[in-house]
């Protein structure tokens, strides 16, 4: 019983500490991300990989392939 009460004090304390800290960290992370995303929008973000290019290539390849293979439907 005494053990149980100690465990409760320690346990609930840690749970509140841990989740309280998580609240704080989520807040910091969210603000950081918002600041970064705002900057990216302002400065004109670049996405690194250009998917449009890749898509274009594949589409063209498929078209050529199809035009090359008219007899197989």
């Amino acid at each position, binding site marked *: *019983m005494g053990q149980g009460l100690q465990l409760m004090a320690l346990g609930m304390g840690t749970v509140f*500490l841990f989740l309280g800290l998580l609240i704080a960290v989520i807040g910091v992370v969210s603000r950081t991300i918002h600041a970064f995303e705002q900057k990216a929008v302002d400065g004109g973000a670049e996405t690194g990989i250009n998917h449009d290019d890749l898509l274009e290539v594949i589409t063209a390849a498929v078209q050529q392939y199809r035009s090359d293979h008219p007899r197989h439907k």
Partner: protein
Amino acid sequence: MSSFTDLMQQLWLTTGIANCSWGQALMMGVGLLLLYLAIVKQFEPLLLVPMGFGAVLSNIPIAEISGPDGLLGILYQAGVETEMFPLIIFMGVGALTDFGALIAMPRTLMLGAAAQFGIFTTLIGALALNFIPGFHFTLANAAAIGIIGGADGPTAIFIASKLSPDLLGAIAVAAYSYMALVPIIQPPIMRLLTTEKERSTRMEQLRHVSRTEKIAFPITVLLLCVIFLPTAAPLIGMLTFGNLLKECGVVDRLSNAAQHEIINMTTIALGLSVGSKLQADHFLNLQTLGILLLGLIAFAIGTAAGVLMGKVMYRTSGGKVNPLIGAAGVSAVPMAARVVNKVGLESDHHNFLLMHAMGPNVAGVIGSAVAAGILLAVVGG
């Protein structure tokens, strides 16, 4: 085999009539009752159907389906003793959960924290039961029983298999049964502890949460867990892994697998395995009755603590937080959030609290994983 009469006798000796004990018959009845609750009352059917069926199978005389060479026994050894099944389910839960509501309103984590009060009260209750002759719960037993108050099936099974494998059957039955009974257990407590005015509180719409925030969330939770509570890392690790698969957007194949085939297969296997622990000789005793009673108390106290913390937030926020959402802090996702929504609608027919209750609801999952980590750290594991 000498004569036809001998043959018939041999066959007779393998019939159920000649071998079935009253305990086995009773436990098969319990299995059928679980099936009835699951199918007709639709109480947590995804787990109770396999578990109820597993209970019937494991009490069939002669067949030894739960024995070391039987199918359920093999599944239990391979997946529950190793803790693989609950961890894999947790990955699936992570892949199915949208933490957006929690990220938009992180202070609702406090509600998920408060609801863990049920765990530790129940732990004390289990130790207190030792004053009654016939109960001999060790601290590890008490901790495993307390975790029922976490209202989270995989966490309960994970902890029970580590701290009290003998009680696993009763603990799992209690955890899933009361999760199924959340719509019956919670509303009276919620109404008792709140005023009509509090229950009518409308909450602001949640802000938009960006994809980057959702990707950062599982990693943040995991790192905090690494720094402060590594004993919770298996549970938190798999939960956040599943969630990262879902949110990162580049591995949809794997995310789909975690949300569907993996969790479905593991749910069947886990349900049957847990059912295999409902064998008459392990289940039918005073301990089980105590556990069922304590589990009910755990849910009630967890709910009450959540609602009371909700009232605190109602005050400190100047009436912007509806205290009902505190009840969702026990987890029991998504049932508890739906119950909050329903009770809220009783007071104001246009007040939909479902989205706001999802925050504390998923916070409760993290909260009980943290509580589980503490129990493992202190009680041993």
